[in-house]
C-alpha cells in the first residue's frame, strides 16, 4: 500500500514539474542567502579569532594606563621583581601589522624538537600576500597567519621597526613572591583577558546586520515555499480523497507526504548551500573591504568550505520547509474524506485567516512603535525591525483585500467589476508573493535611504574635516621636522596631525592636540558644544570628544573626562563618521606636556589655492615623497568617498538579491495561478473576451499589483530607514545621522518593481493568450 501511495503522491510532480521547481528553488534561494551570509560571518570571525589566538589570546595583559609603549628597562624590572610577563611589540611595517614576540618568555611555551631549523638570517613569518621590503630579513610564508600580518622574534621586529614594547602578556602561573606592580612601575595597569577581541566586539554589529539580511532573505524564501506548498496540497486534495476512498490510511498518506517534503528540503538545502558558497565567495572581498574600511579588521578574501555550513544549511532548509508546510499538512489531516477540491473555498478559508493576520499585523506594528519610543541598543533595534517588517507583511493581504473590495464595489461596467473580483479571487495565492515583494522593496527603500543619508552627511563631514588645502605624510619624525622648517615661509599655516593612543573608560581612543588655528573654528562643526569651545580647548581648559566616545562612554558636554593626566570638561561633541573608536581633542600645550616626545609626521597645509600645485610639486621633490604622501584636499575626499562606497557594496548586493528572490516569488505564484484559473477564465472567454484581451488583462493586473505593493512598501521602508538611522546605527557605530529622503530613488525602485512584475507576468499572460480554445471549453466538459 505504501508503495501505491508513494507512486500516487509522486505522480503529482510529473504533471506539475513547475511546482516542484518553485518549491526547490524557493527553498534553495532561502537557504543560499542564509548560508552565504553565515559563511561570510564564520569566515570573518575565524579571521578575528586567528588574529587574537595567534599571540596572546586568553592571557591577561599589562599595558601603560596612558596607552603608551613600555620600555625594555621596565620589562626587565618586572621580570627581576618576580613578574612572569612576556613582551609583545605590535608595529606597522610597509602596511603590514608586524608582531614581535619573545619566544623565551611567552607563556605556555612548549619546546618541540621536531623542527630544528637554524636560519642564519633574521626571519619573519608572514601571511600569504604580505610583502616585506626589508633586505635584512628572510620571510617565510605561514598560511595560518591572519591576513596582513607577520610575526617574528622581538629582536628582529624591534630592529626593523624601532618600536618599543606595546604590551606585556601575563603568564597565568606566577611565582610565589613578587613585588606589587605599582611599586615597580605605577603607570602600568593589568587588563584582564577578555573572551573576545576588541575587533570582534566592534564588528559584532556589522555581522548582526548581515545576519538580519540573511534572515530577511530566508523569510522571503519561506514565503515562496509556503505559497507553493499551500497550492500543491490544495491541488492534491482530490488525490488524497481518492487514496483514502480506496482504503489508504490517512496517517500513512501524511507520513509519505511529509517524507517527500523532507527529501525535497534536503535536496533544496544542498543546492542552497552550494549557491550560498558562490554568493559568499562573490561577496567576501567586499565584506573584507568593508571591515577594513570601517573597523580596520583584516579578513581573508578567500573562503574555506566548512562542514558546519552543510549541517546548518541543510538544517535550516528542513526546518524552513516544515514551518512552511505544517499548516498545509494539518489541513490535509483534518480534511473530511468526501470534501472536494474547491479553489474558491480556499480563498474563502484564507479570508477568515485574514482577520487573524490583521490582528497580528496591527499588534506587531504597534509593538514596533512602542519599542522605538523607549528601547535602545542593537537587539532592540533589530526587534523593532522584525516587528515592523513582519507586521507590515501580515497586513499586505488585508490591505489588498480591503482595497479590492472597494474598487470592485465602485467599478462600473462588467469587465471592470470582473477584473477586480478576479484579482481578489487570486489574492490568497498571490498574497505571500506580494508580501515578499513588499518586504524586499521596503528593505530596499530603508537601506537606500540610510546609505543615502549617510553619504550626504559623510560628504558634508569631509568638507568640514578636510579643510586644509594639502595633506602631507612624511616618512619619519626627523623628516617631519625638516618639512616644517622648509615649509614655514612658503605656506599660510602648517597644522601638525599627531596623536596618541589612549584608553578612556575602557574605550580605545585617539588623542589629538592640534595647534590653535582659525581653521578649526571656521570649519569644525560640533553636534553640541559650549560657547567658544575652540578657545577653551586651545587654552587647555577643555576637551572635545567624538560622538562615538560620547555614546559609548556616556559623556556629554559639561561632563569631565580624564585624559593626558588631567581632568578636563567636555566642551564639544563632534560627528566623526566612519571611525570605529573614540577620539579626544585637547590643546597643543597639554598634549605636548603629556607626550613630549610626540613628533608629527603628517601635516595639514593651509595655502592659497593658486599656489597649491606648485607647492605640492616642490614638496615632493624636496623630500622625495610620492603622490600618495602629498595629496590635495579633493583627491583625499575622493579616496574617502571610495572607501565609503565600498563599505556599502555588500548591503547593496544583498538588496538586489532579495529583490530578485521576491521577483521570482511573483513569477512562480502567477504561473501556478495561471494553471489553476481555467475555471475562472473559461466563462469570461465564453461570453466574449478573447484570449489576447485576457492576456493583456493579466499584464495590467501585474502592473497594478506592483504599483500597489510599492505604495505599501514606501511608508514601511521609510519607517525602516528611521529605525536603522536612529536606533541601529547609534548602537552599531556610535553615531546618529539625520534622515533624508530620496524621492527619485524611490520612483526608480517603483519602476523597477513594475518592470519586474511585468517580466514575471509576461509568460503567464502569453500562456493565457495562446491557450488552445479546446482547453477552455474543456472546463465546461469537466464541470464538477
Amino acid at each position, binding site marked *: 500500500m505504501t508503495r501505491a501511495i508513494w507512486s500516487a503522491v509522486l505522480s503529482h510532480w510529473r504533471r506539475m514539474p513547475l511546482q516542484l521547481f518553485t518549491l526547490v528553488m524557493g527553498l534553495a534561494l532561502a537557504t543560499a542567502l542564509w548560508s552565504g551570509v553565515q559563511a561570510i560571518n564564520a569566515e570573518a570571525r575565524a579571521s578575528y579569532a586567528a588574529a587574537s589566538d595567534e599571540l596572546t589570546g586568553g592571557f591577561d595583559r599589562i599595558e601603560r594606563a596612558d596607552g603608551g609603549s613600555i620600555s625594555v628597562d621596565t620589562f626587565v624590572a618586572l621580570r627581576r621583581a618576580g613578574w612572569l610577563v612576556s613582551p609583545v611589540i605590535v608595529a606597522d611595517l610597509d602596511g603590514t601589522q608586524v608582531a614581535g614576540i619573545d619566544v623565551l618568555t611567552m607563556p605556555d611555551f*612548549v619546546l618541540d624538537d621536531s623542527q*630544528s631549523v637554524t636560519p642564519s638570517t633574521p626571519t619573519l*613569518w608572514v601571511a600569504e600576500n604580505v610583502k616585506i621590503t626589508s633586505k635584512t630579513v628572510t620571510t617565510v610564508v605561514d598560511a*595560518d597567519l591572519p591576513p596582513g600580518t607577520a610575526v617574528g622574534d622581538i*629582536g628582529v621586529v624591534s630592529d626593523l621597526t624601532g618600536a618599543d614594547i606595546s604590551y606585556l602578556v601575563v603568564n597565568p602561573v606566577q611565582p*610565589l613572591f613578587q613585588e606589587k606592580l605599582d611599586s615597580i612601575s605605577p603607570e602600568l595597569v593589568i587588563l584582564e583577558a577578555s573572551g573576545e577581541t576588541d575587533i570582534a566586539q566592534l564588528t559584532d554589529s556589522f555581522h548582526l546586520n548581515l545576519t538580519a539580511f540573511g534572515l530577511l532573505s530566508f523569510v522571503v524564501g519561506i514565503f515562496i515555499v509556503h505559497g507553493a506548498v499551500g497550492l500543491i496540497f490544495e491541488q492534491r486534495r482530490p488525490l488524497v480523497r481518492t487514496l483514502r476512498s480506496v482504503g489508504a490510511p490517512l496517517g500513512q498518506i501524511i507520513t509519505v507526504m511529509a517524507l517527500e517534503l523532507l527529501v525535497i528540503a534536503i535536496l533544496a538545502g544542498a543546492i542552497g548551500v552550494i549557491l550560498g558558497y558562490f554568493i559568499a565567495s562573490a561577496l567576501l572581498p567586499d565584506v573584507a573591504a568593508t571591515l577594513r574600511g570601517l573597523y580596520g579588521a583584516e579578513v581573508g578574501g578567500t573562503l574555506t568550505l566548512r562542514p558546519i555550513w552543510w549541517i546548518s544549511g541543510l538544517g535550516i532548509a528542513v526546518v524552513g520547509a516544515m514551518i512552511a508546510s505544517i499548516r498545509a499538512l494539518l489541513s490535509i489531516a483534518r480534511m473530511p474524506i468526501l470534501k472536494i477540491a474547491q479553489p474558491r473555498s480556499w480563498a474563502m478559508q484564507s479570508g477568515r485567516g485574514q482577520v487573524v493576520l490583521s490582528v497580528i499585523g496591527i499588534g506587531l506594528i504597534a509593538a514596533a512603535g512602542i519599542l522605538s519610543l523607549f528601547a535602545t541598543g542593537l537587539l532592540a533595534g533589530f526587534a523593532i525591525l522584525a516587528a515592523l517588517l513582519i507586521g507590515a507583511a501580515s497586513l499586505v493581504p488585508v490591505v489588498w483585500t480591503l482595497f479590492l473590495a472597494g474598487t470592485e464595489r465602485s467599478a462600473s461596467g462588467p469587465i471592470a467589476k470582473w477584473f477586480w473580483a478576479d484579482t481578489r479571487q487570486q489574492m490568497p495565492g498571490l498574497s505571500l508573493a506580494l508580501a515578499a515583494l513588499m518586504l524586499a522593496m521596503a528593505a530596499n527603500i530603508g537601506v537606500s535611504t540610510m546609505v543615502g543619508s549617510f553619504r550626504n552627511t559623510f560628504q558634508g563631514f569631509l568638507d568640514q574635516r578636510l579643510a586644509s588645502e594639502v595633506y602631507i605624510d612624511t616618512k619619519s619624525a626627523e623628516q617631519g621636522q625638516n618639512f616644517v622648517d622648509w615649509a614655514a615661509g612658503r605656506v599660510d599655516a602648517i597644522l601638525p596631525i599627531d596623536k596618541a593612543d589612549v584608553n578612556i573608560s575602557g574605550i580605545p581612543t585617539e588623542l589629538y592636540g592640534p595647534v590653535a588655528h582659525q581653521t578649526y573654528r571656521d570649519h569644525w562643526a560640533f553636534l553640541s558644544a559650549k560657547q567658544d569651545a575652540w578657545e577653551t580647548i586651545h587654552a587647555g581648559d577643555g576637551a572635545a570628544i567624538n560622538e562615538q566616545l560620547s555614546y559609548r562612554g556616556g559623556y556629554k558636554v559639561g561632563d569631565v573626562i580624564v585624559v593626558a593626566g588631567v581632568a578636563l570638561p567636555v566642551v564639544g561633541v563632534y560627528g566623526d563618521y566612519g571611525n570605529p573608536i573614540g577620539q579626544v581633542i585637547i590643546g597643543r600645550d597639554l598634549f605636548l606636556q603629556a607626550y613630549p616626545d610626540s613628533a608629527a609626521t603628517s601635516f595639514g597645509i593651509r595655502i592659497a589655492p593658486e599656489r597649491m600645485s606648485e607647492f605640492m610639486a616642490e614638496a615632493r621633490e624636496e623630500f622625495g615623497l610620492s603622490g600618495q604622501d602629498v595629496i590635495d584636499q579633493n583627491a583625499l575626499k575622493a579616496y574617502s568617498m571610495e572607501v565609503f562606497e565600498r563599505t556599502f557594496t555588500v548591503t547593496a548586493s544583498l538588496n538586489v538579491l532579495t529583490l530578485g528572490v521576491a521577483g521570482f516569488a511573483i513569477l512562480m505564484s502567477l504561473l501556478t495561478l495561471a494553471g489553476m484559473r481555467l475555471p475562472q477564465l473559461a466563462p469570461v472567454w465564453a461570453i466574449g473576451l478573447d484570449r489576447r484581451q485576457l492576456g493583456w488583462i493579466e499584464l495590467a493586473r501585474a502592473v497594478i499589483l506592483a504599483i500597489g505593493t510599492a505604495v505599501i512598501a514606501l511608508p514601511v521602508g521609510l519607517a525602516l530607514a528611521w529605525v536603522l538611522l536612529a536606533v541601529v546605527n547609534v548602537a552599531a557605530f556610535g553615531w546618529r545621522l539625520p534622515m533624508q529622503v530620496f524621492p527619485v530613488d524611490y520612483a526608480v525602485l517603483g519602476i523597477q518593481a513594475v518592470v519586474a512584475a511585468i517580466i514575471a507576468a509576461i509568460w503567464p499572460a502569453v500562456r493565457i493568450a495562446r491557450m488552445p480554445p479546446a482547453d477552455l471549453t474543456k472546463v465546461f466538459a469537466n464541470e464538477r
Partner: protein
Amino acid sequence: MNVKAIVLCILPMCAMAQGFAGLGETVDGFAVPTAGYQFMFPEDHGAHPEFRIEWWYVTANLTGPDGTQYGAQWTVFRNALEPEMGTGWGAPQIWLGHAALTTPTDHYYAERFGRSGIGQAGAKDTSLDVWIDEWELTDNHMTAQGADWAYHLDLQFDGPLVFHGDNGLSVKSSAGQASYYYSQPYIRVSGSIFVDGAEIPVMGQAWMDREWSSQPLASDQSGWDWFSLSFDTGDKLMGFQLRGTDTYTSASWISADGGVTAYSDGAFLAEPITVHETAGVTLPVEWRVTLPLQGVDVIVNAINPDAYLPVSVPYWEGPVTVTGSHGGVGYLEMTGYD
C-alpha cells in the same frame, strides 16, 4: 603559525644533532679550552662569551628542624649563538635557568629563559653575581622560586676554590674534549624553604660548580652520571662517568684541608644497583660508587627517586645519602636517559 618554530631557531640546545643537549656539536668560531689557563677572580665568576656553553651550578643538602632532608638546586646556563656578548634583544646569548627544591616526597622545579642583552639575565665579573629574572646567586645568598615553592638561602663560602682535572682543564673524552671546571665545595647554608604554604628553616651545606666550554662532549657521548659527595670525615668526592661508545670517567678527591687529587679515566667507577621509573623514564636511583685509590666503596641512594626535571632538556637531579666505607650526603645528576 607555529610559534614553536621560532624558538627552535634561537635555542641551539634544541637543535640536538649530537650528544646530549647539543654539547657534542662542533665549535666554529668559538674558543676551545686549553691546558695552562690562568684563572682570574672575580673575573672568572663572570661570563665567558667566547665559549659556547657555560653554567653556574649550586646544589645544597639541607636539613629541617625535625631532621628531614631536603635538596635545593640553582642552575643558570648560558648558551651562545655567536662568540660575543652583544646588547639588546638580538644579543646572541640565551640564558636558561633551572631551579628545584626536593623533599623526600615532592620535587618542585621551575625553568626560565632570558636574554642577557637586555639585562634580564646575566653574570657580573666584579663579584659572584648571577641572575635570571628574580632568581639570584651571589657569594652570600641564593634565591629561586616557582608557583608554589621558594627558597631564600644565605651562603657562606668557607674554603678555597677547587680546580678539577689538569689545574681546571677537565677532559671529557679520550678524544680530548674538555671544559674549564672549578668548584666551591665548602659552602655553609642557612635560610628558609617555602613549600605547602609553610616556611621551614633549614641548615646545611652547598657545592658550587662552574664550568664552561664550547664542545665539552664527544659526539658519541649521550649522557653522564655525576656525583658530588660530602663525607662525614670532611673529605669530598666529585666523580662522573660519560656514557658513550666507551664509558669515560673522571674524579677529584678533595681532602678536608682543601687538597685536590685528580683521577683520570678508569679510577672512578659507578655501577647502577636499582633502577626506578619516573615520568616515563627508567634510571638508576641506587648506585655503588668506588674510588679504590682512596678506599671509597659506598652505596649512593636518592632521597627522592622522582627528582626528575621534565624541562626543555630533561634530566634527573637530586640529593642523595651515602653509606658504606664512608657516610655522608651529596647530589646526583643523571642526563641522557630519555
